């Protein structure tokens, strides 16, 4: 056992290490909330910067009046990003709904029924998780071009759902595997159909796991970069991709970029704290339970 002094030392080191990891997030938040010219100060201002909503005002196309009233800027201005946030939400919600629906059905079958070659099938699903995104994005670009899905929300929703399917299937299977098979069998003997059992018994019991899966799918869609970069042109862009367009030949709009980044981070932070209990299971595709 550790002595009180050792425990103090351990706590001190732990706070310092996590502090180092937290610093870039803290600094990015301060960039979003400071006036533009203080971004370029040398030595860098870590604590005593001038607080300002200016970057957020430009990103949301509003001005905050002296008395606290909000005024909407007509046309939104050059850095108006609300439509891009809406794009991100549509894509993340849509792809999550699609992936979770399809995966819930499939993983129930994989967990409960005898399927010939099941082991190989599960491993094949895992293999699709190994595909380099670029190996999917290149053919997808040409396929979407033929089907008119380029630059459409539906196209990105499908490809993000596809990207999340291996995770969703394997993770949900692990949650269904936790529910004793005997419950299904008892209901089957009583004459309930598989679908009724699924809907009325198994799904309610696995609802926590389904929610955790949905949160992870949402986050991976929310943060995805390469597919959106490749498969969209003008009519939609999600936050990660549009962030990089703040870099121009005349300089980088760090303040606005940080304000947009912070806006996008906050929902993700809240979501990830909600699923702490199932996070490791999710990150390891259902193979490790906490």
């Amino acid at each position, binding site marked *: 056992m550790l002595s009180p002094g050792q425990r103090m030392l351990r706590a001190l080191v732990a706070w310092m290490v996590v502090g180092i990891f937290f610093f870039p997030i803290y600094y990015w938040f301060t960039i979003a909330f400071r006036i533009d010219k203080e971004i370029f100060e040398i030595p860098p201002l870590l604590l005593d910067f001038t607080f300002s909503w200016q970057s957020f005002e430009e990103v949301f196309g509003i001005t905050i009046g002296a008395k606290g009233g909000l005024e909407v800027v007509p046309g939104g201005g050059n850095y108006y990003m609300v439509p891009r946030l809406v794009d991100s939400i549509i894509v993340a919600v849509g792809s999550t709904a699609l992936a979770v629906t399809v995966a819930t059905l499939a993983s129930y079958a994989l967990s409960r029924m005898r399927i010939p070659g099941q082991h190989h099938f599960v491993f094949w699903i895992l293999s699709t998780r190994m595909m380099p995104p670029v*190996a999917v994005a290149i053919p997808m670009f040409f396929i979407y071009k033929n089907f008119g899905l380029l630059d459409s929300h539906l196209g990105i929703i499908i490809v993000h759902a596809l990207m999340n399917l291996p995770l969703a299937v394997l993770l949900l299977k692990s949650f269904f595997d936790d529910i004793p098979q005997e419950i299904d069998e008892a209901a089957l003997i009583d004459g309930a159909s598989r679908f009724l059992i699924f809907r009325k018994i198994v799904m309610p019991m696995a609802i926590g796991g389904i929610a955790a899966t949905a949160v992870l799918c949402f986050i991976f869609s929310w943060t995805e*970069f390469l597919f959106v970069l490749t498969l969209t042109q003008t009519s939609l862009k999600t936050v*990660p991709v549009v962030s*990089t367009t703040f870099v121009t030949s005349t300089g980088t709009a760090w303040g606005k970029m940080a304000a947009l980044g912070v806006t*996008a981070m906050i929902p993700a932070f809240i979501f990830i704290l909600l699923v702490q209990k199932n996070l490791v299971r999710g990150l390891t595709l259902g193979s490790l339970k906490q």
Partner: protein
Amino acid sequence: MTDVPTSVKPPLQRRFISDSAFPWLFPLLALLLVFAVYPFFYNIYLSVHEFVPRRRALEFVGSANWVKLFSDSRMWGALAVTLIYTGVCLLIQLVLGMLIALLLDSDDPGFGFLRGLLTLTLVIPPAVTAMIFLLLEDANFGVMTYYLQALGLLGSNPILANPSTALMGVMIADIWQWTPFMVLIFLAGLRALPPEPFESAVIDGASNWQVFRRLTLPMMSKVIAIAVLIRGIDLFRTFDYVYVMTSGGPGTATYTLSLYAWQQTFSFIKWGYGATLSLFSLIVILVIAHIYVGLTKLKW
């Protein structure tokens, strides 16, 4: 069949109606078929063709793209960069992740909060992480540049514009974002260890290092194997950080296979060659991953 009451169906028929897996799997199979199998074969089709700008059409070129691939020194360079990136990041994340996990494996007040705080890096879009580190490593006003120079650890060369430090500059972003991934997985493993063997080892007078080496590591082997597999795959596929931070530069110092394939396709309109490169990286990762899964006997 009419004389059989509906509630007592023959076993075979009942099985067929209520227990067939096919309807359950159908949506998944349909999606995977259209959007995973078809693109795979489309990739193969593209890899034996090349876009001819003069005719604005794809032309069959046979194995020319594959011959070109194996004699392309930039491809071998990109493969080397990818393997270095994967290996170095994996090793650092593994060691650092284990050390921090051991550090945070405590029930003392505050440690739960610290573990929660550490998970936040995982949900930041990698492209935004790349931007954050672009700012921190900026040659003129970057915090990292400033303090590294103040400590005498960095010369006057900008980190990302210098071929000898650029790759490290990109890897720092990856290491920052994903070391907590390792920490969380290892922590889950550490917390699940049974206490008895450790108690008896302490009674027998084993040193901390002996306990770690002889008990903790072997008992954690499955956890470590899974973490290495998942992280290794993602490192090998890396694209966002290099694309945003350096676009492969300076020169070819930070070209990864994914970035090279992407640029060949979309910047240089070499559709056939780009598809060949992406297929090649797919084959490399699948072969390595399958050997690894076979060796470590991982099961899902």
